[in-house]
């Protein structure tokens, strides 16, 4: 290879520029796999019956936050539930739009400890879709999830946090 010519060197540059962008999907895949940042995957595709572990209970806490661009009340209806491994649970979050402005909101999930993130499977979640919130609307938003039997044994408490962002398209 004639490395000592400008063309191949420029080619390396172009490749590395592309690599910078390639890091974005790579990172996302890696995060979901390793649970970095407590990132969770999208809707869980159930391929086989979930294994239920009868004698193992895990506490799951829920936290509702919001970004600076949307400071409205946003809360889980219950702060904590005890969950049996493999059993589906439903919880609800309530959001209030106290203003006279209709917006579109997006909830971003995050799990602590991040180690647990790959084992928290969401069947249904308001975070999968953007949520239109009309002026003055009070909305209950459901979440259905279960915990995988592969959840590391030392994890006894999981916090699932949602942060609400205003993603209303600019007009």
């Amino acid at each position, binding site marked *: 290879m004639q490395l000592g010519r*400008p063309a191949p060197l*420029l080619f390396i*540059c*172009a490749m590395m*520029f592309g690599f*910078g962008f390639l890091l*974005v999907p790579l*990172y996302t895949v890696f995060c979901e796999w390793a649970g970095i*940042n407590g990132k969770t995957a999208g809707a869980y595709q159930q391929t086989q019956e979930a294994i239920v572990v009868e004698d193992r209970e895990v506490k799951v806490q829920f936290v509702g936050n919001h970004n600076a661009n949307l400071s409205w009340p946003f809360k889980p209806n219950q702060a904590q539930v005890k969950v049996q491994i493999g059993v589906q649970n439903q919880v609800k979050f309530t959001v209030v739009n106290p203003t006279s402005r209709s917006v579109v909101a997006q909830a971003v999930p995050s799990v602590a400890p991040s180690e647990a993130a790959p084992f928290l499977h969401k069947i249904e979640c308001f975070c999968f879709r953007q949520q239109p919130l009309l002026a003055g609307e009070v909305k209950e938003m459901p979440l259905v999830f279960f915990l995988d039997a592969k959840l590391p044994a030392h994890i006894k408490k999981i916090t699932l946090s949602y942060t609400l*962002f205003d993603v209303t398209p600019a007009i």
Partner: protein
Amino acid sequence: MSTQAADIDHGDHDHGPAKGITRWLYSTNHKDIGTMYLIFSLVMLFIGGSMAFVIRAELFQPGLQLIEPEFFNQMITMHGLIMVFGAVMPAFVGLANWMIPMMIGAPDMALPRLNNLSFWILPFAFALMMSTLFMDGGGPNFGWTFYAPLSTTYAPPSVTFFIFAIHLLGASSIMGAINVIVTIMNMRAPGMTYFKMPMFCWTWLITAFLLIAVMPVLAGVVTMMLMDIHFATAFFDAGGGGDPVLFQHVFWFFGHPEVYIMILPSFGVVSQVIPTFSRKKLFGYHSMVYAIIAIAVLSFVVWAHHMFTVGMPFVGELFFMYTTMLIAIPTGVKIFNWISTMFRGSMTFETPMLYSIGFVVLFTIGGLSGIMLALAPVDMVYQDTYFVVAHFHYVLVPGAIFGIFAAVYYWLPKWTGKMYDEGLAKLHFWVSFIGLNLTFFPMHFVGLAGMPRRIPDYPLQFADFNMIVSIGAFMFGTSQLIFVYVLIKTLRKGEPAEQLPWEGAEGLEWTLPTPAPYHSFPTPPTVE
């Protein structure tokens, strides 16, 4: 290394420089472009340094005295950006321009027009970057690491200009790097095999490869910022499915090799200077080369040690702690080799040697604090404190800047044909050396005591050390005026230099007449 072509006939090919300003504007001559790079970086050193003055003046005492926090943040950001991209990197490219053709026996750089372009981009890029300071909302105020979302959603409007300036700087660096690689790979004199190349050329070759590998990644990350800000993408915005931590990963994937880009050419300079003034060959030439390659390769797998507090999984922290510690081994090899080069040599201590010894001592201190910082559990405490500030200034100021001073004093007689004033130059060294340590050593203490970095005001228990730091900084900064005076005095009334001003110096550059002719080696010398 010896050469057969000590005496070269320049008669036919030698046409001198063009007259007037066009000599500089249209220059394709490696020496002229090298000179412009060096002068540019000196100007930038003073601009970045005066910003450090502003910072240290505000931090002289607790309380807000001189500037507002908003402006303080712009100062720390611009200080970092200007020193990294304006002072250190152009100075190294300038040295590469001057020295690489002379050291490998080439007439000029391989791509002279590209060379002209890569220099002339710089003044415009920096004009663009510094103009942001006068814009509504001020200049970049998010630190030189510009973490999203502070640099995207929460940035002042001028951030777009900052992004374009970074793009231009990156393009300039990439062009410079391509030129260095093509020159070294194609234009070595007959007989100059890779393993006969002077160490400075080796370090620059590796640096150039690092540059073309990581500058595009920096370009990528600022492009993503640009798209987030203006085109409604969400690379770094969690609300749109992005992740601010991704920014840090991509940034430091560029950033860590970048810090080696700022140190490797200095390794090269010191590896030229120490053997000369020890009158002895460089100890362990081959292991030095392998050590540089090892450092360069490892620099790609350590980036997340800048992010230990970001909340990584256990395995991640462990991995980055171990790889970071590994870098200590090749770095240690280099330091031991330099010391062994001095060992049982016949040393004299002219200014370049003083700067090189200063480099070895202070860089080692910076390296040792680097080992401490590499330990993830302790880094939880050091992270983002003045301990980190002390560490990277110990690595970069004596590392990069002292290396550059050593190089300038070492080759100045060959460049200008005149000797500098040794007494004044030594004064410059000693005042710089004391000022530098007075500035950066107490930073270790305030950092350990708990002072975060990038704050415009601080609790009272840090007051005394901060005052000492500020005094040291004023001393270090002012001492650079001596350097300017030495340069002017050399040019105005320096004694004529001999062809071989240093007794122990070896290498092709010293076979040229003094001052070095406009075109170095019209016919290539042969290296045995």
